């Protein structure tokens, strides 16, 4: 099996699936071009994540990651939840296949996007200017973080040509010595 028992458990019995109609914050990341898409909804009470629900379109890893993130964050304060990282999510799942690490990336990002949305709404309610948030609804260049259009072979922003890392499948600069996603040595052909 390519996945750990923990991943398969969360994939088969995902926790906190659903939609919160009157959510205090909502965050959506990814899109089907990249592979996965996740939507997180949060209810906040006294700066604590009272309830979390998610919906995910994606592979086994993406579903397991969303479920794990929701479980890790539920009941935590907002500040604690913001400290959940891709690495801690993957670790809590007893690891993910190298080429699926970007899924764990999305899970924490989606939660954080929901929290930012909540903060923005709070600020707006207080009449303050909302802080800008990055809408992560497409693929991004791993070097300049500029948005990529459909075919991911070239970044228009930093003028880098990509090739797929043979180890993890993520985008790496053509001729790069190290994969920016998995850190694999690409200098050897």
């Amino acid at each position: 099996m390519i996945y750990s028992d923990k991943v398969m458990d969360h994939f088969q019995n995902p926790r906190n699936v659903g939609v919160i109609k009157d959510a205090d914050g909502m965050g959506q990341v990814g899109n089907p071009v990249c592979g996965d898409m996740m939507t997180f909804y949060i209810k906040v009470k006294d700066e604590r994540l009272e309830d979390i629900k998610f919906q995910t379109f994606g592979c086994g890893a993406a579903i397991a990651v969303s479920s794990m993130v929701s479980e890790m964050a539920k009941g935590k304060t907002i500040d604690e939840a913001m400290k959940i990282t891709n690495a801690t999510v993957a670790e809590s799942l007893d690891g993910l296949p190298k080429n699926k690490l970007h899924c764990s990336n999305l899970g924490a990002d989606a939660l954080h996007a929901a929290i930012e949305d909540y903060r923005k709404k709070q600020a707006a309610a207080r009449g303050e200017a909302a802080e800008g948030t990055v809408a992560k609804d497409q693929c991004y260049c791993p070097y300049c973080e500029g948005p990529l259009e459909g075919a991911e072979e070239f970044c228009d922003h930093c003028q880098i040509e990509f090739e797929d890392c043979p180890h993890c499948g993520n985008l790496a600069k053509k001729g790069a010595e190290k994969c920016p996603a998995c850190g694999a040595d690409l200098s050897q052909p």
Partner: protein
Amino acid sequence: MKRVYLDHIAATPLDPGVAEAMRPFLAGRFGNPQSLHADGQEALETIEDARARVAALIGAAESEVIFTSSGSEANNFAVKGLALARRDKGCHLVLSAIEHQSVLHSAKSLEKSGFSSTLVAVDKDGLVDPEEVRKAIRKDTVLVSVMLANSEVGTVEPVAEIGKVCRAAGVPLHTDAVAAAGSIPVNVGALGVDALSLAGDQFYGPKGSAALFIRKGVRILPFIDGGIQEGGRRGGTENVMGIVGLGKAADIAGQKLGERAQAMTALRDKLIEELPRRVGHVVLTGHREKRLPHHVSFCVEFVEGESMLLNLDMKGIATSSGSACTSRALKASHVLLAMGLDHALAQGSLVFSLVDGTTAADIDYVLEVFPPIVERLRQMSPLYTQFLEDNRK
């Protein structure tokens, strides 16, 4: 748990008759076909007998069959060997956009030596238009390669018509028949091809056994430099046991192909008709009629392929998917995108490919188990929620 194997396109089970034919070479008969003593000569006779059987399956002469280690090797051999042998005539290739990676990447590799290629588009059913092939051929075109059938969507291409186009233009034609040979009738004369790849593991033979047909008189560069094996075109001691298995599988396919296809076509059609009645928003991929007898492929909207595949596997059903998440490179299938499907739909790709022995009960089991899996995954899909909301408006 009950296992229902519906992943023909990945591998077929070994026919018991094939296993029987191979057994003596696992223990006892080990001679090298190039040795002059009796053990060697016996092995040589065995592989030449297998060569005759493979040739008979595709209507070729024995001397036109070269054994290789895989369909991918046969494709590499054909594309590189034929193109490089015609270097003096030009350096342009014409390929369909839905060729297997072993063809596309061979062409890509040739680009480093100055070749360029034109990819011929396909229609929404994955069909190549022979007229488009004719238009793509240039004065400096040295090879056309169009597959006989596509393993992801099951579409069978009009290779015989493309053969006429190529003959008129004087350009050699290779066809990757790995997904087709042994499953549908294949005749190199009727197809008018100069080269054809096939693989034993697609018709109940062993893995590691494949062949390339090269029409007599067509120049091709050797693929593995070495000894005099395979007429000096592919060095290396022959995989005698695999070749024996391939020969036997070709033999059995020749006898049972029609019967197998008939049984599988009925079950295929049942799944194609019945599944969309039980699951909404599914799209058949590939041509409805011009398709492999064992092939059923769908794109299921709002759901990703790997998550369906894993759920089916937990119910004992083995399938394939062309979704980005399923591929190690995390790229959506180039075949589905070339057919004009959008990324979201291509992500929901699922292939059920039947094998000899698949029963009506197996198909019923899929029809029973699959709808709740899709329903459950859609309940957690943000795309489905969005779709329902948009519909409400």
